[in-house]
């Protein structure tokens, strides 16, 4: 046993006698050994081994808290020690030579000439070159178009109707997140509500509404919308006309010195709309007003749509203004 141990230690720590110097020219310039650096590299490799081995241990032992942190730490440190070892090897244990080398020649005129000649001569037998080129161009274009055609199946690219369709039509009930009808009496001032069309898909831009209540005396709606806000209750599309985010902020109550009017604000780019004036843009990048939905209060005090939006819902596109949405 003892002999085996000694043998192992000798094998591990013993250094090979240097090979007899070969009598040929060196490629890498010689340098003195650096035992301190070698020792440091060994220490770093040992540290890397310990950290690397810790990873599966942390992985396997469930009772260790904050597993993600310790996993990251063990793997990260293992890599860090290896990086340090590698850089130490570069700086202290291998010779850093400075070599010179010619930049490759800028060009090869003979080969260029030969290539040109090769192509020229290969095309010698064509007598109507330009026509062939035009023909190949036509065929290539046709093939390209043919290959691209299936891409048209990706979406209704030439069919804009879906962009104008909303689930709202006269008489449709406004419901809250849980599907309960929104009652006119429950809608208070100084807060805002999100409403959806009853029984319709909520995950479409035309569905969600933001509902607020203002004192009727404060309203200054565009002409033709006089009866769109029964009891001062207003409904607008919840989707910003700028970039399609949901209007999630209501600036009310306000800070009178700087922001005198209640406003609907989009948290993405802070487009700010005036609910009292038909959703006009007060600030921020939106280019057109927030579409308003006409409301009515039915016999049992529930809020219903009185028609469709005043304009197309969601972010704008080329020609968005010239048509009204429909159900």
């Amino acid at each position, binding site marked *: 046993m003892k002999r085996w141990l000694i043998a192992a230690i000798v094998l591990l720590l013993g250094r090979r006698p240097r090979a007899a110097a070969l009598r040929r020219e060196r490629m890498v310039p010689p340098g003195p050994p650096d035992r301190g650096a070698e020792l440091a590299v060994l220490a770093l490799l040992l540290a890397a081994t310990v950290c690397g081995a810790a990873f599966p241990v942390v992985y396997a032992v469930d009772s260790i808290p904050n597993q993600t942190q310790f996993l990251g730490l063990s793997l990260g440190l293992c890599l860090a020690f290896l990086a340090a070892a590698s850089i130490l090897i570069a700086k202290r244990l291998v010779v850093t030579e400075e070599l010179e080398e010619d930049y490759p020649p800028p060009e090869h005129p003979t080969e260029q000439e030969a290539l040109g000649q090769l192509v020229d001569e290969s095309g010698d037998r064509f007598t109507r070159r330009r026509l062939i080129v035009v023909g190949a161009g036509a065929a290539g274009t046709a093939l390209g178009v043919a290959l691209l055609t299936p891409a048209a199946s990706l*979406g209704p690219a030439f069919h804009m109707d879906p962009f104008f369709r909303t689930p709202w039509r006269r008489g449709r009930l406004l419901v809250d997140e849980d599907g309960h009808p929104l009652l006119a009496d429950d809608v208070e001032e100084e807060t805002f509500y999100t409403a959806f069309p009853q029984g319709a898909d909520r995950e479409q831009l035309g569905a969600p509404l933001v509902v607020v209540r203002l004192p009727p005396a404060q309203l200054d709606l565009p002409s033709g919308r006089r009866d769109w806000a029964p009891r001062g209750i207003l409904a607008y599309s919840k989707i910003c006309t700028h970039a399609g985010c949901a209007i999630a902020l209501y600036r009310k109550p306000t800070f009178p010195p700087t922001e005198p009017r209640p406003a609907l604000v989009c948290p993405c780019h802070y487009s700010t709309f005036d609910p009292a004036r038909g959703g006009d843009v007060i600030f921020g990048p939106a280019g057109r007003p927030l579409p308003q939905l006409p409301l009515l209060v039915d016999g049992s005090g529930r809020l219903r749509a009185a028609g469709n939006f005043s304009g197309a819902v969601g972010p704008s596109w080329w020609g968005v203004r010239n048509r009204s949405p429909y159900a």
Partner: protein
Amino acid sequence: MIRGAVRLVDQRSGGAPFIRKALRYVFPDHWSFLLGEVALYSFVVLVLTGIYLTLFFEPSLAKVQYHGSYVGLQGAEMSEAYRSAIDLSFKVKAGLLIRQTHHWAADVFVAAIVLHVLRIFFTGAFRKPRDLTYYVGLSMLMMALLEGYLGYSMVDDLLSGMGLAIGYAVALSIPFVGANLAALIWGGPFPGTHAFESRMYVVHVFVLPILIGTLIALHLALVAARHHTQFGSLRATARKVVGMPMFPAYAPRSIGLGLAVASVLFLLGGLVQINPIWIWGPYHVASATNGAQPDWYLGWLIGALRLVPHFDVTIGNYTLVPNAFWGGAAFPLVVFSVLLLWPWSERRLTGDHGFHNLLDRPRDAPWRTALGAALFTWVFLIFFAGSGDRLFVMFGLSYSLQIWIVRVLVVVAPAVVLVVTKRVCDELRAGERVESERKAAEAEAALEARLVGGRTLVPGSGELRR
């Protein structure tokens, strides 16, 4: 053993002469040269962590109810994509580490590319014969931006959805074809068909990684074919490249850098939380959160979208160019066009069609440096505008006031920076000229003094040069 392995490889591939040459490839050394390598190693980490994530992520928008281990979302309705992303964070061991490392690596990847581009630009490394390398690099930057955007959009958390809504709006805003294009990409009006998730997924995990990987290979091949650029010195000239060989000196340095990059990324992934998707919640068209910030590399677009004053270009009642086009599409188009057209325009304007193996110090090309600094200032200010809401929360600076200040600054500041930078470059060069003239005069005076003193000069002793 080494010789045996070498023989084995050479006999099968005939590659020994090539490998020998490659191992003695000369790398000029300068700290700023490692930025591209940081990007390369980040990409390696991205691919490895990304492959692991695909083993657990389910790219599906099918609705499920959450009943996992995270209490905050119990019973919430969400897509399979979002649920699987949460499960791979909480249920899959080491999943969160890998996911966060992947996210950090993406941020570092783009940052390294951007800094690398700046280095290339301001040292004139993009000039002939390396303009092609530069175009390939810029293409990779554009792809990296799209790749990152798709990566965090696929998860289908609230921020994903808000980002996609904005992307949709920008696509929609392109004049004449916007709505048709958006309909093709999303398969209909937002939020599109369920297949849209698969489209993002295949582009993110297959199309773009392969394109970027191929372009990396092309980029490196072009670099090697024309050799590295270097700063000039007595030995390093336009004809001779001077530096350390790939082996043994450079390889352990580069491997060390790669390991260090991976180390930092895994430490970040383990210790510094990034994109805690379980806090954002699932996306619904009707929800949004305040204070949402995208990954840093999209900040310039958010800033641009926020800065543009409210107007649509209309003819009568007909919308021609919706507002989101300016910030979301025109602005990055302008920036990338300037960068892409730069080598060509510089050749045209300066009449310099020559080969350049030596780098410029920024001061050596005052106009390029000044214009580049102005462009950078412009982009940075717009980037900065993207954090106005955070500044408002932290320091109470009125948001609208900030926007107006930045609106003015984006016009004024680049002009100021242009003039100042040009002046600084000129002054630095004038200073150097004065200094070198002074030295020459001193040397001459010393020489005269010695000659008067009656000493003879030994040719080649270096005294003349001193």
